[in-house]
């Protein structure tokens, strides 16, 4: 299968230029292409037929990682760059966990965090870790105004986000971690590094006594796409690293999500994956948090 005719291809140099280009097309006709590793699948299968393709590769403002004040990752930053960046605070280590195992080497050399969160595929890792670590998404609106949207308000469901068709995601950012915080992500697929049948992201903060006083849990691979599991975060409060206490947390997660059966796994197996992956990521996030320099 080959792409349908693409009338126009542009490679703007700045965010302003992107807005000007977008303004020339009726909504939905112009499509932004970041890494294109998912988008090109849709374009080749002709599920998506953009009239105009706007390639973001030259927009310098969208590139790179900055950890001066918390952490900011430009929308056009590729997975391989994130995976290879060892200055990510342990509070947000889940991002690196996820980026290191997206697809395969070639995909990681090309795919971007911004592309992934805006595409918001039903089974994907980056939206889940952005939710799980409470990332903040900076969006440049059609009027050029930049707004900040919390992850909780960004992801609407598979393929649907708060970033409008005339808007541009600039970056994902996280504040300077307070106290001892750690996060972790792990997924399970039928094959190594395949799309998540279930993926679990946990981030938590500890008080001086290494007791969890804030936590978030997000899950990937369910029919509703990457989602925050509030009950999971609540159940983690008071967690002191005792492995015995993990069971109730994953049970709370299972209680508040709906697992589907499909040709990758049955619903009950997904629940077991939540238990197994949950135990692993909770433990890892906790260890990372205890080792964190406040």
């Amino acid at each position, binding site marked *: *299968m080959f792409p349908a*005719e693409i009338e126009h291809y542009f490679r703007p140099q700045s965010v302003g230029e992107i807005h000007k280009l977008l303004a020339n097309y009726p909504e939905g006709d112009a499509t932004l292409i970041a890494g294109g590793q998912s988008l090109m699948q849709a374009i080749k299968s*002709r599920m998506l037929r953009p009239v105009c393709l706007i390639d973001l590769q030259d927009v310098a403002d969208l590139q790179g990682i900055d950890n001066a004040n918390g952490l900011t990752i430009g929308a056009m930053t590729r997975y391989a760059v994130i995976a290879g960046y060892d200055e990510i605070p342990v509070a947000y280590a889940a991002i690196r966990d996820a980026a290191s195992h997206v697809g395969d080497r070639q995909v990681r050399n090309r795919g971007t965090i911004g592309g992934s969160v805006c595409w918001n595929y039903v089974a994907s890792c980056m939206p889940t870790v952005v939710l799980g670590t409470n990332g903040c998404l900076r969006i440049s609106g059609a009027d050029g105004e930049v707004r900040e949207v919390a992850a909780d308000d960004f992801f609407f469901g598979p393929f649907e986000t708060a970033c409008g068709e005339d808007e541009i995601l600039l970056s994902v950012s996280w504040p300077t971690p307070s106290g001892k915080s750690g996060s972790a992500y792990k997924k399970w697929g039928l*094959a190594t590094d395949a799309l998540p049948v279930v993926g679990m992201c946990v981030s938590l903060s500890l008080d001086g006594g290494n007791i969890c006083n804030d936590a978030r849990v997000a899950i990937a691979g369910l029919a509703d796409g990457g989602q925050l599991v509030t009950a999971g975060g609540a159940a983690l409060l008071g967690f002191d690293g005792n492995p015995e206490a993990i069971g109730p947390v994953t049970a709370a997660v299972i209680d508040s999500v709906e697992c589907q059966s499909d040709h990758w*796994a049955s619903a009950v*197996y997904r629940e077991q994956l939540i238990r197994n992956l949950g135990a692993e990521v909770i433990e890892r996030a906790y260890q990372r948090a205890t080792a964190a320099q406040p």
Partner: protein
Amino acid sequence: MASSEQVAEKPWLGARMARKEDLRLVTGKGQYIGDIVLPRMAHAVFVRSDYAHARIRSIDTAAALAVPGVIAVITGQDLVDDVRTMPQPVLLPNLPAKYPTFSALAIDKVKFHGTPVALVIARHKYIAEDASELVEVDYEELPVVTDPEAALEAGAPVINEDHDDNEIFAMTFTGGETEQEQIANAKAVDEVFANADVTIKKRFRVHRTGLTPMEPRGVLCDWSEADGLTAWITTQRPHIDRLALIDLLDIPADKVRVIAPRDQGGGFGVKAPFFRENVVIAHVARKLRRPVRWVESRHESLMNVGQERDQINDLEIAASNDGTLLAFRNHGVADNGTGETGVYWGFVMPFLGAVELPNTYTWQKADVHLRVAVTNKACITPSRAFGHFPTRFAIERAIDMVAHKLGMEPAEVRRKNLITELPYTSVTGEFYDSGDLIKLWDNLMAQVDLKEFRTEQAAAREEGRYIGIGYATGVELSGMASEVLVPMENQPGYGAATVRIDPRGAVLVFGGDAPQGQGHETSVSQVVANAFGTNPKDTVTVEGDTGTTPFGSGTIGARGASYFMSAVHNACVEIKQKICRILAHDFGVEGSYEDFEFANSEVVYLADPSLRKTFRQAVERIIMHPINMPVGEVGGLEATVYFEAPEQMVCFNADLCIVEVDINSGEFDILKWVSSEDVGNVINPLIVDGQMQGAIVQGLSNTIFEEFIYDEQGQQLTADFENYKIANAADTPNIDITYASTPCPHTPLGTRGIGEGRPASVPGALTNAICDALIPFGIEITELPLRPDTLWEKLQAARGDR
């Protein structure tokens, strides 16, 4: 000419020689179907049905034809006057079956999701795809049957309407020709079961999976008034394709040439049938008088070909308390798909699968029944382990179940029942020519200390770790003698080769088969170097072009080292004999073939080594200077030789694997996989290692990862590599190949053909290891695929039971 000499000890035979093919392939200079471009070549895209079963009310091609750059749009109606319907006799096995009659492009109705209904030809492939979207087909949906047992029920919608029901093929394999004999046999089997110490009875089910060459199919056809049709086809059997095209298009035999591209990206059986797409492309090239190429997309490929296995086997085994296997009874139901694929028609695979049920074991009696059902799915196409992946899984699993019931070591039960006296005719009538199964088995078991493993296993269980060991054995046909291949596939079994000596001393070998990665060029060059005492680099091998090669039935069924290489060797011997006669004359000595040695690129008269010529001098004299010749000799050095073995040949293998199962997730790791191979004399162990490793991983991939899924409406849901998962490097183990070979007495070099059936023992070995690990839970796996989720669910159920 059948030479009985056994010359396996010469250095080039058995050498781990790096392949000759590789230089072009690692530098990007291979030539695959998609790399061949002709002037004015047009591109074709098939329009395929997105319904599984529907009547075609009408097809509107006007909008597609109007797209600039479109040359033609063809539908089934356009074929009626110019193309005969399938099947034609050349494509029919000599087996009684209800063959469907059909047009290469469907006319009246579509029978599976993916049925070709139209073809768009355009100057560019992107344009062809644009236009293909605009072909409007009006369908009237018909009831869909996707389950083979439901398809066989009375009142099920009939898919091939030229027949009364969906049973394309049925057979009883044992008990004789007449009904009375069969009843008597069934009774005898009943008696064995009635008196047996233990019996087991299970339903074994293997899903639809198969092989997917990395290069999908393709066809490029050109037509000229002078030469007629030239067709480049991704194919394992160009000569058969040529005959089919002659008959289907009614073209005189002198006007059709088929060429299998020099490089093909894998075949594994998938490129063995004659496909309907071939004839459509040939037809349009003739009609348009210009070259037309179709390169199959992966999406099309996964919807149309490479689907195999898909059987239910209700298997019963009777055994005695000492572990002696007595008899088995099997009722198989196989899902055929539509049955619209030439040569095999879907059912030939389960037919052979049923024949191979006895495997390497002795049985007093068997009662085997098979029914093959037409369904609204793609027609089954051959995949390595032709039909016997499911039956071998069943029999190997069942043997472990007998062992578990008797509390015996599965290894002991196997060894006890191996066939010890060969030649042997199995209880289903399959002939095993030679081999040493005890040696094979003992070599396998020497790779592990079973006693120590059992101690380790017990200790591990104490720690909550579950490790297990599993085995399976296998027999595969080393090529097929005409006695077998004529009835089964309506074609000869012999191997053929032309060996031509070049005046400068190079050796050109022409073969009628068409390899897709097996390394024929390398193996042939080793056989030639062995014969002539020359260097393998001096040999050039040309295969796959019906215009230049002798007839060959194809690169199928492990015919390479058994039939083709034997023909090459014998042709070399014929040439050597001529060289010797002429050199004896030149040297003025009495002497013949036995009196000369060919070594170090020289021909030496053994009785007086001062009488010698370089190979090049010798051949140049005969080819270029045919004067002063012995009486009756003329110049030139070329021989075409056909090799037919006096017996049907087989080879054997055994697998052993050790696994660890995580009972908390159902996931398992393969800690060790080692094989034992009885493959006759090996021409190139590097190549044989590679064939075996590849086949074993194919077996693992089929067992664990791959599954073709159809929904109730017959929608094919696994038409890409995201949904049809094949095993990657991170999920597969290292594999040790070991040998315990017995030279084959029926081939001049003692070689056997290898590799076709090799994946078949994999699912048994793997599932047996897992069941061994999980003996405390009493889990017996009877269904594939083997996935962590189903295994975990079985564990949960077992824990609930305890």
